[in-house]
C-alpha cells in the first residue's frame, strides 16, 4: 500500500524536510497573526483592546488590595464627601464609603459575573445549537421543545424568585442562576446556521472519510461558524454586564453589602443624588458605556479577521 504511493510519486522520505520548509515559507499566516494585523490596522479598536485589558487587569488586581468589609462600613464623617480630595478621589456616598474603592471592587464583581455568565451560557448555548442543528430529526425536535419551554418562562421574574428563595447567595450562585436563562438566544442562532452548514458538501465529504459525528460538529462545522460565535459572544458579554447591573439596580442582584456597578448606579434612584451628588453614580455609568463600546469595537475586529473579504490588515 505505502509502496504503491512510493512507486508512482517521485517524492521520498529524503525530501520531506526540504519540502516542509518550502511549504512553510509559502504558508498562509495563522489566525492569531491575522487577528493581530487587523488590530494594528484599526487604531480605535487597538485603543479599545488596551482599555478593556488594562481596565480588567487593574480592577482584578486592585480589588485584591481592598478590604471590602472594612470599605463597606458606614463612616458618618465622609457623608457625601466631595470628589478629588486626598481621602476620597471620587468622593463618597451617603454612608461615607469611598466611590473609587467601590468602583474597583464593584467592577470586579460585575465583570466577573459577566465573564462567567458569558462563558457558561455561550458554551452551553453553542453546544445545544450545534447538536440540535446537526442531528436534526427527532433529536432536534426534542431539544427545540425544551428550548421553547425555557423561552416561555418569564426570565426576570424567575430570577427574582430564585434570588429570594436562596438564603445565602453571592456572585458565584448568581452567575449560575443567570446562566440557566441566558443560553437560549445563542442556541437558536447557532442552530439556524448549523442547519444550513451541515447540508454542505464538506460535511458529506467528512462523513465519507469516516470522521465521527462529534468530530464533524466541533472540528468541521464549529470553525466555519466561528465568526458568528465570536460576534455573538462579544455582544452577549456587553449585554451580560447590563444583566447584572439591571437586576442590582432593581435591588434583586447582588446583596447590598457587595458592591457592584448595578448597586452604584442604583444611587441614581434618588433625585437628590442625580442633581447634587453626581459623583455617586456617574463614574459607574460612564464605565459601563466605555466598556460596552470598547467590547463592540473589539468584536468587529474579530469578525473581520474571521472573514477574509472584510479584512483591512496588511497580511493577505
Amino acid at each position, binding site marked *: 500500500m505505502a509502496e504503491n504511493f512510493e512507486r508512482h510519486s517521485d517524492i521520498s522520505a529524503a525530501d520531506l524536510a526540504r519540502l516542509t520548509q518550502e511549504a512553510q515559507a509559502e504558508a498562509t499566516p495563522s489566525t492569531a497573526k491575522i487577528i493581530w494585523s487587523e488590530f494594528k490596522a484599526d487604531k480605535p479598536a487597538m485603543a479599545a483592546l488596551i482599555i478593556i485589558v488594562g481596565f480588567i487587569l487593574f480592577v482584578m488586581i486592585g480589588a485584591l488590595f481592598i478590604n471590602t468589609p472594612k470599605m463597606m462600613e458606614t463612616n458618618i464623617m465622609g457623608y457625601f464627601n466631595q470628589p478629588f480630595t486626598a481621602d476620597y478621589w471620587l468622593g463618597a456616598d451617603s454612608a461615607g464609603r469611598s466611590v473609587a474603592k467601590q468602583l474597583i471592587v464593584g467592577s470586579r464583581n460585575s465583570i466577573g459575573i459577566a465573564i462567567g455568565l458569558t462563558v457558561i451560557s455561550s458554551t452551553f448555548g453553542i453546544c445545544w445549537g450545534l447538536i440540535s442543528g446537526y442531528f436534526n430529526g427527532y433529536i432536534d425536535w426534542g431539544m427545540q421543545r425544551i428550548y421553547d419551554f425555557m423561552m416561555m418562562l418569564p426570565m426576570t421574574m424567575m430570577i427574582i424568585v430564585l434570588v429570594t428563595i436562596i438564603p445565602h447567595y453571592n456572585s458565584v450562585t448568581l452567575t449560575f442562576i443567570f446562566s440557566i436563562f441566558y443560553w437560549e438566544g445563542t442556541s437558536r442562532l447557532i442552530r439556524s446556521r448549523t442547519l444550513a452548514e451541515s447540508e454542505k458538501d*464538506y460535511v*458529506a465529504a467528512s462523513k465519507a472519510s469516516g470522521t465521527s459525528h462529534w468530530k464533524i460538529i466541533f472540528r468541521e462545522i464549529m470553525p466555519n461558524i466561528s465568526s458568528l460565535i465570536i460576534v455573538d459572544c462579544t455582544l452577549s458579554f456587553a449585554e451580560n454586564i447590563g444583566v447584572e447591573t439591571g437586576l442590582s439596580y432593581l435591588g434583586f442582584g447582588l446583596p447590598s453589602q457587595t458592591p457592584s456597578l448595578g448597586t452604584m448606579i442604583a444611587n441614581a434612584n434618588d433625585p437628590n443624588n442625580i442633581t447634587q451628588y453626581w459623583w455617586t453614580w456617574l463614574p459607574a455609568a460612564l464605565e459601563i458605556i466605555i466598556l460596552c463600546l470598547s467590547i463592540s469595537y473589539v468584536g468587529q475586529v474579530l469578525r473581520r479577521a474571521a472573514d477574509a473579504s472584510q479584512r483591512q490588515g496588511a497580511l493577505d
Partner: protein
Amino acid sequence: MSLIEIKDLKVHYPIRSGFWNRVTDSVRAVDGVSFNIEAGETYGLVGESGSGKSTTGKSVVGLEKVTSGSIMYKGLDITKAENRRKLDYNHDVQMIFQDSLSSLNPRKRIEDIIAEPLRNFEHLNKDDEKLRVLQLLNIVGLDADALYKYPHQFSGGQRQRIGVARAVATNPKLIIADEPVSALDLSVQAQVLNFMKKIQREFGISYLFISHDLGVVRHMCNNIAIMNRGRLVEIGTRDDIYNHPLHIYTKRLLAAIPETDVNAREAHRASRLAVEAVYREQQSKYYDEHGEAYPLVQVTPTHAVALPQNVAQQLARQEGEVQA
C-alpha cells in the same frame, strides 16, 4: 464476482401534508435500480438533472438513507451502518464531489483536508502522514507549497485535483465521481479527467462515474447505465450505447451532444428534430401508463433496455443486432 452489486435500490423521500402532517406520498428519487461494478472498470451513470443518479451515488458511499434494496460489498449489505463500520467501508469506497469549493472545508489547510481519511483509517505517524500527503499532491500535479494553504487560494481545477487526492489517499477500491468536472471549463476538464485515468491505471481503482455529459462519459467509461426518472432505461457497453441505442431517452441524450462540424449543421439539426418527433409521437410505447420506464429486458448479453419484450426485440432487429 463483481466489486459491488446493487440490487433493486430504492430511495424514496416522504411528502408530508395535511393537518396531521402525515406521509401522503413519496418522491421516488431512485426506484429499483440494479447494476454491478467490476474491479478496475469505470462505470458510467448518465441521466438528466433530477434523474436520481447523484442519489444513487450517495447511497453507494453510504451518505443516503436507503428505503429498500441492497448494496453488496464483500458479501455484506452496506446499506446498514453497522456493516459499513465492520468493513471500514469508506476506507475502500471514497467520493469526489461536483462542487470542488464547497466540498473542501474552507477553514482547514490542504494538509489537514487530504490527511482526513488517513487519520481516520490508517493512523500513520506524523512524518509518514505528511510524506503521504506530499506524495498525493505530487501525484495530482500540485507543488509542495500547497500544503499549508487554504482551499480558496486555488483555482477550480486545482481544487478538484485536491478533491481527487483526498479520495485517493487511502488507496480505495472504488471512487464515486459525482459529476467531477461539470463545474470546470473544457481545458481543465480534460486535465482532471486525465489525472483520474492516470490514477486508475496506477492504482487499479474502479470509478462510478456520474455525469450528464455523454462526451465525457465516452472518454472515460467501459460500461454505461442510462437513468431516467429514478429508473434505469438502458445498460450496455460503450459500443452498445453509442452505436446501437434502443431507448428513445438514450437517443435523445445522444442527439443532445453538441457537434462542432459547421458544414453539417443542418443535417444535425434535422436528426435532432427527428428524434424529438419520435419521442413526442411514441412516448406511450417507451413508457408505461404512469409515465415510468418498464423493467429492463436483456437484448444481448451486455445490452439491456427498459421496454416490453416484443418492442425491445423489434427495435433490436431494426438495429441489426444479434438476438440474445
